[in-house]
């Protein structure tokens, strides 16, 4: 089984975000970056499938120099090799463009399975997975919370809204988008980290891939980002912890009358 996992590097959930003066994006210099949460679950699922059925796990990311780290982490956890898509011209890709670039790389890899996260925690378009499946003419299943390999195919449990699920069967090769909670992502072991240093991490540019820039021109433009204007009147309780607690008990008892 040959599996490729797409891992995006995103700011850590606990990051304090500062918007650039020109409102084009957030200041990145003080941010801590990490692998997108659902992508970490996708990587673990790939490693579990490989351990159970044999094969190879390839980790792939596209992004600036800093994002090389998510590949090193994936290699340390047990991925066999990594592909780093890195090029100035990739900076302005929209999700259609990203899917085209990933398709260029993956059409040569002939994977049995491609795993994505269900959405990126930063820009959250929830689009790249199904778009890539379309580019590669592969079947896809979104929001997968369990996988089981069948003879020549795959049975997965798909999450639906409101606590509902269903079983879905697909032929292979296929693309899945993985929902969080599907497994327990592992930590890298010291041995894994040592082994990582000897593994292949291949960097590819737009020229290497032979994707014409015209095909990648974004069809959408990010005009600006900003902190949303608050619409609800929240009563903030301030002071030392004891005071805050006393105020809250008073409000709940006498104003909201919910105690």
């Amino acid at each position, binding site marked *: 089984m040959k599996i490729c996992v797409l891992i995006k590097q995103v700011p850590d959930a606990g990051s304090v975000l500062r918007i650039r003066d020109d409102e084009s994006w957030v200041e990145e210099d003080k941010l801590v970056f990490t692998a997108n949460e659902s992508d970490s679950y996708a990587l673990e699922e790939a490693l579990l499938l490989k351990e159970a059925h044999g094969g190879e796990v390839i980790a792939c990311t596209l992004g600036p120099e800093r994002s090389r780290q998510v590949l090193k982490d994936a290699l340390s956890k047990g991925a066999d090799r990594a592909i780093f898509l890195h090029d100035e011209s990739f900076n302005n890709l929209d999700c259609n463009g990203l899917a085209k670039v990933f398709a260029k790389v993956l059409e040569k890899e002939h994977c049995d399975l491609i795993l994505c996260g269900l959405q990126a925690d930063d820009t959250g378009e929830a689009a790249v997975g199904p778009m890539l499946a379309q580019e590669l003419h592969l079947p896809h299943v979104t929001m997968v919370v369990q996988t089981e390999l069948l003879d020549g195919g795959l049975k997965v449990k798909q999450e639906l809204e409101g606590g509902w699920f269903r079983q879905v069967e697909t032929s292979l090769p296929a693309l899945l988008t993985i929902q969080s909670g599907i497994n327990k992502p592992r930590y890298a072991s010291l041995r894994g980290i040592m082994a990582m240093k000897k593994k292949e991490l291949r960097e590819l540019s737009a020229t290497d891939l032979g994707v014409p820039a015209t095909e990648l021109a974004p069809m959408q433009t990010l005009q600006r980002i900003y902190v949303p204007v608050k619409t609800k009147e929240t009563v903030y309780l301030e002071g030392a912890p004891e005071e805050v607690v006393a105020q809250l008990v008073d409000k709940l008892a006498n104003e909201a009358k919910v*105690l």
Partner: protein
Amino acid sequence: MGKILAFIQLDDGQPNRNALEALQGGQQLAADMGHQLIGVVFSASSPQQLQFKMDEIITVAAPELEHYSADTYVAAMAQIIAAEQPDLLIAGHTYQARDWLPRLAAQISRPLISDCIGFQKGAQITWVRQVFQGKVHADVTTGEGLAIVSFQAGAFRHDRLESGSPAIRSQEVDLSAVEVQVRAGEPFQDTKAAVDLSRAERIVAVGRGIGDEEKLALVRELAEALGAELGSSRPVVDYGWLSHDRQVGSSGQTVAAKLYLAVGISGAIQHQVGMKNCGCIVAINKDANAPIFEIADYGIVADLFEIVPRLTAAIKEHRSA
């Protein structure tokens, strides 16, 4: 005159609520842009309830569309788009829409602006979407030609839909060549939920901010003192710290408690949709910019470990007084 197609997702023949909200957005867009608004249902007949102001409703019937599949939905909509040449295709950002709209956008090579919370009119429409899980908003525009836009649950209000009696037109599609590659079974729920949070009067909900499974005891004690059920955000369930029936949100339970106390929960939209209708919402979070404060009645910006034990003690004292 331009054209807006509004895809109206039907669940067991009934219009999906999120789709109706998007339709209300469509009515606003049509008025602002002077465009036609055309509903599209993948069904032989238009459901009775669709008595809303639209220029028409297109019904699309084909045996292949009776059960949802991304392959047939994409093929059918691509044919409708080719016939109608719309400027916009809008839909609710449902799980189903997440599954097939990106695939459609890739197939016809058009931009997808997903999960929008609104728009601003101007020389061109600016779409507003959340980034960084709602902490920041982004304005996005597209160039000429068809754009596909999905709207977040609650972006517009279905109870503000203008009524009307649109003409109904059926449109043929040919899906005989579509190979359905994915076969889905019937929806099911896991073991019957042991806890029914939807009936709880008070809920203390805990999020990833608790940091550690052992620390859950702190919020358990608070819940006990308040006579509240314990609820949680998704990560706490993902980590296996609490069972799935404690999860509040779009993939968990929807609750309407009189008191909802959110501890260490950031308030991502998928959590908010499950609890925003609670009577009194209290948020304890150390990040003043956490989106949970957007819907909180009372906010405490502080370290939860400083607040929660003291709050438990104060509640006990209040109750015994």
